[in-house]
C-alpha cells in the first residue's frame, strides 16, 4: 500500500518557518523539469502581468504554460496608524520589492511578485486618500443606481455554502515562479523578520503544469503521491485535477485587458492613481475528485465544463475556447431549456467575453469575443491553507485535499461578480436559470466547495507599496 504523505504543518506563531517550507510541494521540483522560458525585458508597469510565459499547442489549441510554483501570503498590518509610520513602512516594503525586481526577472524563470491590498487597509489606514483616489466602477454604479468602487467586499454566491469565510486581510502577496527556491526567497525577504510590518494570517501554496508533452502531469503525480481519493481517476496528462486544460490562450484575457483603465468600465478619478492596476479575487475551493470521476462520465464532464452537447473525441482534455466558440446568453438559456444543464465556461462567457470590439487607451484593439479575466489560479493540496494564524477558524486539516487557490484579475470587483453569478445561472441580462444551489446541471459546481473569499486591489508597480500612504496629510 502506498503511504500517504504528510505535510509539514506549523501552527500558530510559526509563520516564518512556514513561509519557506516546501512541504509536499518540494515534490514538484522532483517530478517535473522547468519549462524553457523566453528571455524578457525589465519589469512592466503592471504588477500582475508576467512576461516570458511559454505557449504550446495541444490538440490544435494554443495553451499558456503557467509557472510551476505559486504561493499567496495574506496578512494584517502591524504598522502604527499615522502618516510617518506609514511612510516608513512604505519605503521599507518598496525597498524589498525593488531588490527582488533587481534580483529576479519578472517571468516564470525569475519571480513574479504581486502585492494586492484589501478594503480593510484602505478603510482603516488611508481613508481620506482612498475616498479621493479609488476608482469608481461606472458600469456597476449605473446598473445598481448607487456609487460602486472597483474594489468591493467579497460576497457569497448562490452556490457557496453558508460556511464560506469572507476574509478581511489588509494585504495579499502572490508569488509565482518555476523555481521553488525563488518563491521561498521572495517570501522570506518580504515577510521574515518584518513583524513591524505584517502579521501573517495565512500561507497558501500550490502548483500548475500539464503533461502537454505526453508525460504524466504534475497534478496527477502530486495527487497520487499525496493519496488523494480519486487520484487514480485523473487523466494521465491533465493540467488540472478535474481533467481539462484551462489555460487556453484564447480563454485568458490578453495582457492589460484586465487593467482598470483598459475597457473604460471605471472612472479613474483625476489622479488616475490606479491606472495600470487591476482587481484581484482570491478564493479557495475544494474539489471532490471521487464524486467528479465516479459520477460524471467524460461526455457529462465535457457538457458541464464547457457546454452541453459539445462533441469532442473521447478523452479530450484541451478544448478550443476561441471567440467563435463563445456562447451567448440566449444560447446558455436554450441549453438550460433543452438539457436542464449549462456548461461552466459557456455560462460565464456572456459576461466574461467582450460583446463588441473595444480599443484600449494604448490603441490596442480587443475584438468581440475576447476574454477579459486574467486568471492565475493553481492546483493545491492545502486543506485549506498550508499554514494559518487561526487554524480553528480556517478549518485547517493535516490531510491533503485536492483544491484550487483561485486567483483572477478583472477590471473591477463587479466584473468578477458578474462572471461568478453567471456560473450559478444568474445571467448578465438579469435572467435567472432556476437551478438549485450546486445542482448536477451546474456541473462541477456540485463537486466544488468554496471555503474562503476576498477581493483586493492591485496597484500599478509604481504604487504597489502601501498605496496612497504618501498622500496622507
Amino acid at each position, binding site marked *: 500500500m502506498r503511504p500517504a504523505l504528510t505535510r509539514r504543518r506549523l501552527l500558530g506563531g510559526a509563520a516564518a518557518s512556514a513561509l519557506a517550507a516546501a512541504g509536499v510541494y518540494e515534490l514538484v521540483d522532483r517530478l517535473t523539469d522547468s519549462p524553457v522560458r523566453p528571455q524578457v525585458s525589465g519589469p512592466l508597469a503592471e504588477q500582475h502581468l508576467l512576461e516570458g510565459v511559454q505557449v504550446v499547442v495541444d490538440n490544435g489549441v494554443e495553451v499558456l504554460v503557467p509557472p510551476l510554483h505559486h504561493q499567496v501570503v495574506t496578512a494584517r498590518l502591524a504598522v502604527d496608524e499615522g502618516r510617518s509610520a506609514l511612510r516608513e513602512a512604505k519605503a521599507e516594503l518598496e525597498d524589498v520589492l525593488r531588490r527582488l525586481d533587481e534580483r529576479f526577472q519578472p517571468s516564470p524563470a525569475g519571480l513574479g511578485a504581486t502585492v494586492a491590498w484589501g478594503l480593510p487597509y484602505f478603510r482603516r489606514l488611508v481613508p481620506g486618500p482612498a475616498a479621493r483616489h479609488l476608482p469608481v466602477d461606472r458600469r456597476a454604479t449605473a446598473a445598481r443606481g448607487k456609487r460602486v468602487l472597483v474594489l468591493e467586499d467579497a460576497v457569497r454566491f448562490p452556490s457557496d455554502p453558508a460556511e464560506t469565510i469572507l476574509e478581511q486581510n489588509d494585504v495579499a502577496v502572490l508569488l509565482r515562479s518555476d523555481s521553488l527556491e525563488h518563491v521561498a526567497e521572495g517570501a522570506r525577504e518580504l515577510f521574515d523578520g518584518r513583524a513591524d510590518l505584517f502579521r501573517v494570517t495565512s500561507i497558501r501554496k500550490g502548483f500548475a503544469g500539464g503533461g502537454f508533452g505526453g508525460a504524466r502531469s504534475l497534478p496527477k503525480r502530486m495527487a497520487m503521491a499525496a493519496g488523494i481519493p480519486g487520484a*487514480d481517476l485523473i487523466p494521465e496528462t491533465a493540467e488540472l485535477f478535474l481533467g481539462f486544460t484551462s489555460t487556453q490562450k484564447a480563454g485568458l484575457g490578453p495582457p492589460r485587458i484586465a487593467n482598470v483603465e483598459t475597457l473604460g468600465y471605471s472612472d479613474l478619478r483625476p489622479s488616475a492613481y490606479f491606472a495600470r492596476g487591476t482587481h484581484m479575487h482570491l478564493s479557495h475551493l475544494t474539489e471532490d475528485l*471521487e464524486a467528479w470521476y*465516479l459520477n*460524471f462520465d467524460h461526455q457529462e464532464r465535457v457538457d458541464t465544463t464547457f457546454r452541453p452537447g459539445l462533441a469532442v473525441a473521447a478523452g479530450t482534455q484541451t478544448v478550443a475556447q476561441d471567440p467563435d466558440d463563445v456562447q451567448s446568453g440566449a444560447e446558455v438559456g436554450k441549453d438550460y431549456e433543452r438539457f436542464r444543464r449549462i456548461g461552466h465556461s459557456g455560462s460565464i462567457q456572456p459576461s466574461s467575453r467582450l460583446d463588441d470590439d473595444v480599443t484600449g487607451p494604448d490603441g490596442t484593439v480587443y475584438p468581440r469575443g475576447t476574454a477579459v479575466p486574467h486568471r492565475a489560479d493553481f492546483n493545491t493540496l492545502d486543506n485549506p491553507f498550508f499554514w494559518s494564524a487561526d487554524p480553528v477558524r480556517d478549518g485547517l486539516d493535516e490531510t491533503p485535499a485536492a483544491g484550487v487557490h483561485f486567483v483572477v484579475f478583472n477590471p473591477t470587483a463587479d466584473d468578477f461578480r458578474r462572471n461568478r453569478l453567471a456560473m450559478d445561472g444568474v445571467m448578465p441580462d438579469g435572467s435567472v436559470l*432556476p437551478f438549485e444551489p450546486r445542482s448536477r446541471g451546474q456541473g462541477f459546481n456540485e463537486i466544488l466547495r468554496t471555503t474562503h473569499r476576498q477581493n483586493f486591489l492591485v496597484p500599478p508597480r509604481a504604487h504597489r507599496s502601501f498605496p496612497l500612504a504618501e498622500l496622507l496629510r
Partner: protein
Amino acid sequence: MRREGLTAGVAAGFAAIALAGCGGGSDGAQATAASVVTAAAECPRTWLAGWQRIADRVGAPVYCPTWMPDPLDGKIDGDYRNVIAVDDRDRSYLVSFIWLDRDAGGVSSEVHVNFRGYPGSTRVPTCQETHTVKGVTKRRPIPCFSDRRATRRVGGLDVDVYTVNQGIDQWHVLYAWRRDGSLYTVSEHVAPPYGFGRVVSNLNRMVRGLVLVEPAGAAGSG
C-alpha cells in the same frame, strides 16, 4: 454522505423491484467477523444453493463468487444480503451484498458488492436520467455503465472496467464481460474502508475466483 447530492434521479432497470441504493438501502447486517473463503474451483458449498436458485430461475448460467471482500460473504440468504431481484421480463438478475458500519446518525463505512447478469443480451443496459426543476421533469436515456477506462484480461475473462455507473451501481467500479451471448457484471462501491485502488484489487480477486453455476438440467458446469 457525499453521494446523496449526486443521485440525480437515475432509475435503473428492475422498475418493479424496490432496490436498496448504495448506502441508503437495507441494513443487511452488522459485520461481526470477516468471512473469507479461499478461491476454489467450485461454488462454496454453503453458498451454492442460493446461486443455484438464481440460475434455475433465469434459466441461464450465473457466476458464483468464491471470494468476497472482508467482511462480506457470498451467501445469498446470509447476513449480508441486500437485494436479490430477477426481472421476469428479460430474465436479468441482480444479487447485492452489503455491510454498513453506522455511527452517530450516519453510515461511516460500507462494503457493497453487486452481481448482475443479462441472459441473452450483451448490450450495456439503458438507465434513465431524470431532472426535475420547479415541477417540470425531463428524462433522457443514458447507459447504465459508462466511462469505460480499460479492457483487462482477468481470470480468463476479458472485462471492461467502467467507473461511472447508475442506480445501485452508482459510485462503484464495475467490471463487465460477455459470455455465450450474455452480459455479466460485478461492481464494488468506492467508499471507506476501501478506496479506488483497493476496490480494483478486490474486483480482480473476485473475478479470478468466479465459477459458473449452470441451471438445473443443463449439462456441465465450469
